[in-house]
């Protein structure tokens, strides 16, 4: 009998600067699927004045050799300008934004609002029986908040996936 064995994996955050052309997101995401690489999260937006350049932040996981391949495969795409591995690059900042809808009344509602305060979440919508909280932070911080809200009437969660940046003064 043969069994499938999975190799030891690492989480890596990659930022990719690309020409903002039609289909570029499909190209990047499709590269991952086509070659069997993992996408844990992916976010993209155009970052230049003239809308010519976009920045894509991808969180992936895999064995070290696969991570090296992902980087090489991304770099050889024609519209890609630069690929940075934040996880290899030293100290860096990771942030994500989440919108979290919680429904409840009485004690649960009060507790939800109190915890939102603790986490420094903002209230961006309210009815007498619900809130939508906006929370930014590391993925772990958002995970923790969501876990707590599950016990207090969590209805819906939307997350952006992280953007990341190397610390210090250079790009």
């Amino acid at each position, binding site marked *: 009998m043969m069994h499938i064995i999975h190799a030891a994996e690492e989480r890596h955050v990659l930022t990719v600067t690309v020409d903002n052309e039609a*289909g570029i997101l499909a190209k990047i995401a499709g590269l991952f699927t086509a070659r069997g690489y993992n996408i844990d999260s992916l976010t993209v937006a155009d970052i230049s004045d003239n809308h010519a350049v976009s920045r894509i932040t991808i969180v992936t996981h895999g064995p070290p050799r696969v991570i090296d391949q992902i980087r090489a495969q991304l770099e*050889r795409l024609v519209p890609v300008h630069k690929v940075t591995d934040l996880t290899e690059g030293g100290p860096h900042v990771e942030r994500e934004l989440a919108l979290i809808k919680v429904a409840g009344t009485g004690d649960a509602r009060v507790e939800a609002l109190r915890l939102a305060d603790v986490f420094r979440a903002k209230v961006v919508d309210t009815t007498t029986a619900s809130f939508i909280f906006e929370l930014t932070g590391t993925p772990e911080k958002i995970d923790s908040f969501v876990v707590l809200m599950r016990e207090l009437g969590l209805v819906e969660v939307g997350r952006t996936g992280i953007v990341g940046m190397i610390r210090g003064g250079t790009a």
Partner: protein
Amino acid sequence: MNEANVPQERSGASILVETLVAQGVEFVFGYPGGAVLPIYDALFSEDRIRHILVRHEAGAAHAAEGYARSTGKPGVVLVTSGPGATNAVTGIADAFLDSIPLVVITGQVPSGLIGSDAFQEADTIGITRHCCKHNYLVKDPTELAAIIDEAFQIATTGRPGPVLIDIPKDVQIASAPWHDVPPQRKIRYAPQTTGGVDEIELAVDMIAAARAPVFYTGGGVINAGPLASERLRQLQALTGAPLTSTLMGLGAFPASHPDWLGMLGMHGTYEANWAMNQADLVICVGARFDDRVTGRLDAFSPHSKKIHIDIDRASINKTVQVDLPIIGDCAEVLGQIIDAWGQRKPRDISEWKARVAGWRAKKSLDYPKTSAEIAPQLAIERLYELTKAHDPIISTEVGQHQMWAAQHFHFNDPNRWLTSGGLGTMGYGLPAAIGAQCGHPGRLVIDIAGEASIQMNIQELGTASQFRLPVKVFILNNQWMGMVRQWQELTYESRYSSSYSDALPDFVRLAEAYGWKGIRIEHEADLDAGIQAMLAHDGPVLVDCMVDKVANCFPMIPSGASHVEMILQGDAVAGTMDDAAKALV
């Protein structure tokens, strides 16, 4: 005539034709359809470009590949939307895996209909996104000239490959100003071609110190042009190291040279695989440590340091960890190494060469005469002997015949060997031969085929007839899909599931139906005469050569085995394999 700097207004189709002419394109391999009618109208009575009408779009793509590999110039394909484009996908994927420069132009439904499931609409860009180097959907004829210019640059520089340009019908008809100077555009693709100075120095030191060096060369040497082959020979002469090649690299180094080891890999020679295993230094030039070559990775060349010269960074450390990667063009890097080597004397490697001679003595390519039928290996040998004076261009289909051709047909120069290695596409050989013949009028071009493979693009017999292309097709007819049958014999205890070539046509009559000459060879005594008759005929010829039905191709590295656990001719075989091995390709 146009005054300088006063642009004319031309249709997208006309701009396309003018840009192709400016790129030096002589042939376009294609097939018309609704979505490309405007382009075909622009080609009507256009005598600067010759359009070769195929009979299936797969034939157009493979013909462009054969043209490109044999001439070193990019192949150009023109097909319509929907089924035209999807039919070409196999050829595009083939060019992608074998690094062949192609520019593929596909028609598309009018812009306003895209996404509405229009007649003959397909998401060509989406479908080909991951089997080409880059693709474009042209939204405006004003961007067309720059796109085509960039497409040719991307297809032909760095690691060559296919580039696709999808042009909606309305964009072909709409007009834009045409300047007959090259378009101004930002260069965003500029692959590194020169190796780093430190790496070159280190490479020279490693080669000079090696006691058991071997050159492992591949298709990258061919792609880098004849200069790369020249410099490879020079460097080999300076160092004296034995040299092997992958399937894709045959011809870069002369097979007639005493240091030639033969092809390595799954069906490579005993000496080539053992030399790779026992070497203390593997100098990889333009090859990619493919699974057909390495066998089981943990047992591949365990004692060697490895230098890897490749223009594609993504090939470095993809399957095998190397010690010294050098990113660059093979011709340039080899030139740098030769210069840095200077007047050094190579180390005495006569002990190593004596070991190699011992492996050669095994004569692993010898084959038995087991039946009254013609041995397929003999057919290839006789074909080689009787055609070598003509310096032929050889294409193949895929399977046992392909491996026997690689083993027994000897190549002394590059660009004479056209085969589908990476994708292994049956049906490649006949259209590839047609493309090569277009690029080399008057030259002898032969497609070595199997009777199963040749049927996959048999319709291209008509293309050769139409354009008076005297290609020769030499079928090794063993009545089975030979390679599949061999694997079923060796791995699945001879359960021959759907591998028998049933209901074969009479190939001679089929050839004659297309206006070709057909020759059948059934007995060894008639082999030479049959080949001579093929060569003597002024026009396309199909030879149906009946060969031994159950010959197996050896040596063979079975799945899951190390590259020195080769099955040799005459070895007893268990007929079965464990699941872990069966699960491998």
